[in-house]
């Protein structure tokens, strides 16, 4: 349960960094002033996200505000988010990067096979479309290649209808790191959701680790 609190969310991001999985720049705000300060430092536009044990699926609870372009909107949205939560739950200020493709990546300890990793099409329809593929850790190069190619959305990921796709080698690298993370740290579950395609390549916009 601990990981659902703010301090551990920092640790979750730290864990990703330790394994060289790129994350969007972020900071935790204690109050509205603080949030504005961080937003300026990170650079507009930013997103605010409520980190609370009460909120598992942020979009369903409207517990996030995206694409905030100035201090005024940061303060306004901060006030709104604060009302949704007990006073001490922190609010995350994060760089907002428009993305064309949303992925989900993660892992879990399976009772039968041990650590596993997963990648799939992200976004609000993840659980409905279930376009995901799984591998057992350690995943070798061939495993990761076939894991990506197995996705129904693979043609979309490669780039379709004039849309530029993701760098498959970068995704493979992230999955390789994730496999290493699962193998070495063995958390019960980890969710990188979403894993966004931005102008800087693929970055983890949110992560949750359960031990």
């Amino acid at each position, binding site marked *: *349960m*601990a990981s659902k609190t703010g*301090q*551990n969310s*920092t*640790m979750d991001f*730290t*864990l990703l960094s*330790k394994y060289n999985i790129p994350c969007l720049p972020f900071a935790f705000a204690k109050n509205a002033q603080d949030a504005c300060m961080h937003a300026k430092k990170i650079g507009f536009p930013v997103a605010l996200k409520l980190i609370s044990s009460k909120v*598992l699926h942020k979009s369903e609870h409207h517990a996030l505000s995206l694409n905030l372009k100035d201090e005024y909107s940061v303060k306004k949205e901060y006030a709104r988010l604060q009302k949704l939560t007990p006073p001490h739950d922190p609010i995350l200020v994060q760089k907002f990067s428009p993305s064309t493709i949303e992925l*989900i990546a*993660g*892992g*879990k300890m*399976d*009772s*039968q*096979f*041990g*650590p*596993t990793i*997963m990648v*799939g099409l992200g976004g609000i329809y*993840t*659980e409905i479309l*279930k376009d*995901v*593929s*799984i*591998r*057992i*850790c*350690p*995943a*070798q*190069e*061939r*495993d990761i290649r*076939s*894991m990506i190619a*197995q996705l129904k959305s693979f043609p979309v990921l490669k780039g379709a209808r004039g849309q530029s796709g993701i760098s498959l080698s970068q995704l493979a690298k992230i999955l390789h790191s994730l496999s290493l993370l699962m*193998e*070495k*740290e*063995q*958390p019960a*579950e*980890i*969710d990188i*959701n979403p894993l966004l395609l931005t102008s800087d390549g693929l970055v983890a916009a949110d992560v*949750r680790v*359960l*031990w």
Partner: protein
Amino acid sequence: MVKRKKTKSRPTQKPKKNSGFPNPKPVFFAKKPLSPIHAEGEIKLRKQVQNLSYVFNPSSIAIVGASRNPSKIGNAILRNLIHGGYSGQIYPINPNADIVENLRAYPSLSQVGKKIDCAIICIHAKDVPHALQQAAGAKIPSAVIISGGFAEIGNVHGEMQIKQIANKHDMAVIGPNCMGVLNPQNKVDSVFLPLHKMGRPGAGSISFISQSGAVGGCIVDLAGAQRVGMAKFISYGNGTVINETDLLSYLMHDEKTKSIISYIEGVNNGREFMHAASSLTRKKPLVVLKAGKTSAGSQAARSHTASLSGSAEVFSAAMEQCGAIQAQNLEELFDLAKIFEIPAFLGSKIAVLTNGGGNGVLAADAIEREHLRPSIFSAKTIKQLKKILPPTAHALNPLDIIGDADSARYEACLQLLLEDENVDAIVAIALMQTASLDSSIVNVIARAAHSGKKPIIVVSTGGEYTQLHKKILDDYGVPTFDSPSSAISALAKALKYNIYKHTKP
């Protein structure tokens, strides 16, 4: 903050040494060591698994529980061995009879006084550990325990006893709660289904391991009826001593076995199974039918990842990863058993030869569905085809040589496809029902297949007359299928395996 730290509940995990924030260096739990899933080379067999050769090739067999009553399992096994053609020594064990089925019976294993390679045990569960102990005392290296009534009904103690005795003496023990083994080569047969009710396949190159005896029996019977040869059949039941992983390792080394099909409800240890399977698939294809696929994510899953990776999805991923081909149902398991009789191929360009239009169209649809490619015949092939074909037929793929085709036309076209470099594999559709096609078509196709130039599979849909000709083709080792879709789906899976085998990890 401090207070909060103390109240953290971690019911299942070891406690953390300290907490992270704002310390940037996170501290994590002690990790379980992980066994490897990728095999570096061939797996060396431990003594106990090596002893399986006594189960498959015994020079003498004792049957504990060899009853005189023909409705008893022990009697059925004894008669199957005698009448099935097993040529080794047979020792019935029965404390209440001197003679069973015209053979001298012995009151117990220890009183036989001769070398016994394998003991088939079919007595009440409570007496099994004692019999196994006697077998160990008589230095019998292997046993097949048919009897049920162990862990499957909660008798864990009895099962533990079996395990202890077997492990102590390095005995290879199959079962309990199983049908045991069948080796068509030397007619070793512990399957208790009578010969007149369940056919036995001839000797072949497919080995089949099945957790379930019932499913095993059905497939073996089918193989017998359709003339598909088998190398070994093992119904391993509870897998107490020799489990599915051991069997894969053994069959990897077994020279008679060229491909393996399996029916599995659960594996003893997922990572060990993967290790054995990935070692096996470097040499031989493995087909897995996994039953008991529970619903996707458990309700308790907290993350998206966990709810999206249920046990069935993870198992399927594991099989994918170690190069095992997955069958969705029994029909497909059987189809996939046959498909590996064709030579290995690595290209996806498929030619369809047919003497019936609609079946060719169905095949073309299946080719697209399975992400294979239809061959585009070379100019040379087209030129030659035009010489052979009547003006009403087109030299296109699917190649419909129309309903009045005889074996000669079929053969001429088949030869051209064998020579065309744009063809990686051939689906030969033979509608046996036409007036012009006679039985010689069987020889035409078998000859082409045996030339070894290209893989050929046959599709024939129809009744008794058709089935008769299909049987002959299967007997020749040319795989036949009932429909274009099942044939091409099997072909696609064979290609997938071939590519896996040739891809660097």
